């Protein structure tokens, strides 16, 4: 699985991963994610086209949550959502209610089977709504009505929906819920405490993994940095191991 990045560079990369799985004859597929905004990037189109032409076993999951920061989908594209884009490239595509956990599970499960057995890409457009702000620096109430956000947060909440289904089947109760919440909270607090005590990454981490082996110019730069930190310890954080 490849993680999302701003430029959707992961889309062609997923095709590459799928291609390598195919060459290795593995019974597996690659899966990659992007948002509605991401479908405007060039790499989305390149990736889909390549996946189709190469018969790459890859699943493209597009979370269409209606917003790219402040840009609503009407200003992102004029097509009928993302599903038609997959079709345009000759990829089997399906649109799913992204807030329906069972529907999403079912779609992805089937997509995986198709991708692996038939060695072809599949696109899943999961429709949903971005309830939160884009990031910690965003205040989305500036560009959309609060009651709209509240509606999707409360009445159309996918987690609550799934929870009600699980409860109706007798597999979960309020008691289980409160127990789990308090135990998870304890675990989290503990994990935070452990993490806070953990050592900060050492100076050598700054230079490791740029290449497979440290080249001479980086060795020199590391040496210079060490000298500087040694000379001016008061100007550099003291809790970082050298």
């Amino acid at each position, binding site marked *: 699985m490849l993680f999302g990045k701003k*430029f959707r560079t992961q889309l062609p990369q997923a095709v590459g991963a799928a291609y390598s799985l195919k060459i290795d004859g593995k019974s597996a597929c690659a899966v990659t994610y992007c948002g509605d905004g991401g479908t405007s990037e*060039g790499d989305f189109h390149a990736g889909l086209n390549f996946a189709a032409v190469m018969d790459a076993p890859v699943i493209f999951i597009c979370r269409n949550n209606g917003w790219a920061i402040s840009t609503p989908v009407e*200003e992102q594209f004029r097509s009928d959502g993302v599903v038609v884009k997959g079709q345009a490239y000759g990829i089997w595509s399906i649109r799913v209610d992204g807030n329906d956990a069972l529907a999403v599970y079912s779609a992805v499960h089937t997509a995986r089977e198709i991708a692996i057995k038939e060695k072809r890409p599949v696109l899943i457009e999961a429709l949903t709504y971005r309830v939160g702000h*884009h*990031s910690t620096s965003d205040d989305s109430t500036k560009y959309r009505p609060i009651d709209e956000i509240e509606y999707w947060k409360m009445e159309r909440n996918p987690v609550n929906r799934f929870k009600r289904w699980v409860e109706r089947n007798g597999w979960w109760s309020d008691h289980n819920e409160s127990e789990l919440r308090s135990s998870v909270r304890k675990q989290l607090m503990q994990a935070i405490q452990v993490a806070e005590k953990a050592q900060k990454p050492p100076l050598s981490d700054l230079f490791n993994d740029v290449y497979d082996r440290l080249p001479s*110019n980086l060795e020199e730069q*590391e040496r210079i940095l060490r000298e*500087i*930190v040694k000379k001016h310890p008061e*100007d550099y954080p003291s809790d970082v191991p050298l």
Partner: protein
Amino acid sequence: MATLFQGVGAVTPFSASSSLDSNKLLLPSRKSLSISDSRGSIFVYRSDALNLKAATRKQDLLIPNAVATKGETSTSAKSGHELLLFEALREGLEEEMERDPRVCVMGEDVGHYGGSYKVTKGLAEKYGDLRVLDTPIAENSFTGMGIGAAMTGLRPIVEGMNMGFLLLAFNQISNNCGMLHYTSGGQFTIPIVIRGPGGVGRQLGAEHSQRLESYFQSIPGIQMVACSTPYNAKGLMKAAIRSENPVILFEHVLLYNLKERIPDEEYVLSLEEAEMVRPGEHVTILTYSRMRYHVMQAAKTLVNKGYDPEVIDIRSLKPFDLYTIGCSVKKTHRVLIVEECMRTGGIGASLTAAITENFHDYLDAPIVCLSSQDVPTPYAGTLEEWTVVQPAQIVSAVEQLCQ
């Protein structure tokens, strides 16, 4: 993109230093002046007669604001108005949009959202959705669109939400922006401004902490400038918009909240000039953008230790203002370059070569260049701090250089 906007709203450590000295001496550039009043009170720039192409352009007479030299008492010491750097950019942008209906803005979230760093706030309400255009997320496309619009008479300003994103538009910037004027035999001009924040912020991650001036500096046909104060941000923005050439204006993620008092009168700065921040005798320190502030911080320490550094904010990254730099080198004979670029292939590397070639005889010591290491910017805050040149390093370097 979750960590992209940590610069917004954050009070940078530098906003407290409104001890930014507005009384800077602007050295006249030999390239753009035909008449100069060297008493230093008013600079009048006239364009060369050769540039009088379009009859519609009436603004050949630019009068940058009077800048008081040190010791000169100004009759209106409290004149001007205070604002933050992003507001200065917006003011410059708005003034140009008011002046010329062909000026337009395009980019992601620049319209009703006002831009990720609020540089275009309020402009869409005033000038409409078409002149302040929200585009889909495709940098190569909207940069290309800007170039096409520029070729057919508009004067677009393309905003990259982060300079790093403009890597997707590199093809457009290099092959089209930079080259079309040449490859069309002068038939097409591309008066486009490409701007956005770059540089190392606070834990924005490797991909969002890039110094694109390194990568773009080789592209023929473009100009590059870097702003560092509200005063020069506004002046450079206006100059970039009025230029007939494509200009890339580099802003810095951490400098948007700098506060300064700028003149009420209209002023435009030169795109090819460096800025004398602090005259001195012992050593020439060349820097730009955020590093200017690290240098000035180091300068305080250096002055206390008895040194007299001359600090120049080069501002013009392509071309270099070798006149101002040369005058300084001839005076001090020692050069220290402080940059945020990486050691390999950065602005500092090019500047070192240029100075060595032109002023070798005037140097008493090899040029020292302090840069970031050749590593992707780490996410870990402590490591990230170590990739950026700190004032203590600058002090050490000057001490060593002046031995």
